[in-house]
């Protein structure tokens, strides 16, 4: 294919495909991260608690770990 040996084709298309797959898996596993944005927005609306401002609501929803995505 493309005038290249089969091994070359397999490597130069296969490894990038692995990285694409890795990216998709990462995006899927980290889908819960949106909850963090919601929690931050809520904390800010409640008068500056949570990040980035100290001194406000200290009860932001802190869910369990994210399944190992990061």
């Amino acid at each position: 294919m493309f005038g290249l040996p089969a091994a070359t084709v397999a490597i130069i298309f296969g490894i990038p495909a692995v990285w694409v797959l890795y990216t998709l898996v990462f995006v899927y596993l980290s889908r819960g991260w949106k909850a963090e944005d919601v929690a931050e927005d809520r904390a800010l609306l409640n008068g500056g608690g949570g990040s980035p401002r100290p001194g406000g609501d200290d009860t932001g929803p802190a869910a369990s770990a994210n399944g190992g995505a990061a």
Partner: protein
Amino acid sequence: MNIETWFLVIYFVAMAAIGVATLKMGNKDSEGFLLGGRSLGPAVTALRLQSSSMSGYMFLGAGSLAYTKGYFSLWYAMGDIGGGVLNLSILGRRMRKLSQILGSLTSIEYLEHRYPSRWIRAIAAPIAVACIFFYVMTQFIAGGRGLEMVTGIPYAWALLIAVGVIVFYTFLGGYLAVAYTDFVQAIIMLIGMLWILIGTMQAIGGWTVGNEAVGEINPNLLTMWGPDGIESVQWGVIIGAVLVFSIGYMGWPHVNVSHMAMKRPSVARTASMYATGFNLLFIPAPYIVGVMALILLPTLDNPELAVFQVADTVLPDFAVGIVMAGIMAAIMSTADALLLQSGTIASQDLFRRFVKPDMTDRQSVWISRFTVLILAIIGYWVAVNDPPSVAEVAIFATTVLGAAFVPVYVAAAWWKRANVPGAIVSMILGTVSSVGWQLAGLVDSTGIDPMGIGIVCSTLAIIIVSLATQRSHPVPEHVLAALEETEKIGAIPAHLLAGQNDALAGQVPKGAGEK
């Protein structure tokens, strides 16, 4: 003035304009100047990360490698394509959140806050600033040479112009200027490179025809085993090429600072898609153009000029100007990030930490700017009088950075037992082993890359020493609390941010760092 030069002038003016535009936004305080006020979204984060990782090497070195080694050179691209997503997925969210809890403004300060000891910064800062200085100098030289090649301006003046533009917008707007110019430059790099690739394919009659012609020169050039065939392949070099280019970025302070400047920790998720998309389009192109240059320019004297000479051959004049702007973009986007980072390390991590702890944010910003200027002058002086080999110095500097810092950055975010002695020994051993391996000439005799050796040594060091010293040097409670909070998904509780101040927010409790 030819049309190529006009394109470069427009490009330089545009970059300087971005510096002016970000002036008011970027210099309010240290966080504004050094991290752009932690305001960057996924697109800017991803493209800034990628463009500052990819220097002029992508246009000069990658083409040269492909011209001399054929498809074997694509091993480097194979690791490189995943470098962005690997960095963002492993470090991105956690480093952003942890750095905010600890109140860190620089990527070296972050290390001291995570591993509370002044020795961490005293060791990390000089290693980083020395490597970054040498690396930025190579970018100055490459920029000067590129400008000289296109415009015909004498090297000394071309170098002065290239350094002047970079310093101008770095000096003005700080991180925000660097981030936005890097974002624009990443797009210019992509357009320029894809234009060359398409022009090359049209000129040779398609990829298949081109490959068949290359195969007639030497069939081994079409394989992944090098021009001498599979019998002479060095597996250590191949494994090193894939792994080092994918994981090495996680040790570069000027790249990792991108994580700390993200608007939210979750930006890392979307940024990873941009990074992988950009890499898939951009990274293989210069290597393929370099291979095809064997047909278009079979008697090239200097392989480093392969990509540029192909562009000059297959593209119209105005397009060459745009492509040249792309080459300058690759060089400048790395140089500005390096320059800002070295200025930051000198002002925040050395001057503020060890000389004048009570200085104001405003003074800190000005010291950073002054340092940028001084480093640029020294860099210019060395580059104009006795320019070293760009490729050798750049590879050496990035090798040491990767070997010294990858394990400490990864362990900082992921391993609660990583402690001060482990981090110190890891950085020292990573540096000494990679430098020693290179200077002793063991690369040729063993076929093993010095970064590979360095990372193995520094990784083993942080694991063994941290475990051995857990009782005498436990990780402080406030760091453990920050790490536990980093694992959770949610807003950072206020009490974890309450102890912060503008200078050394994470240095609590007092005295914890004096071990």
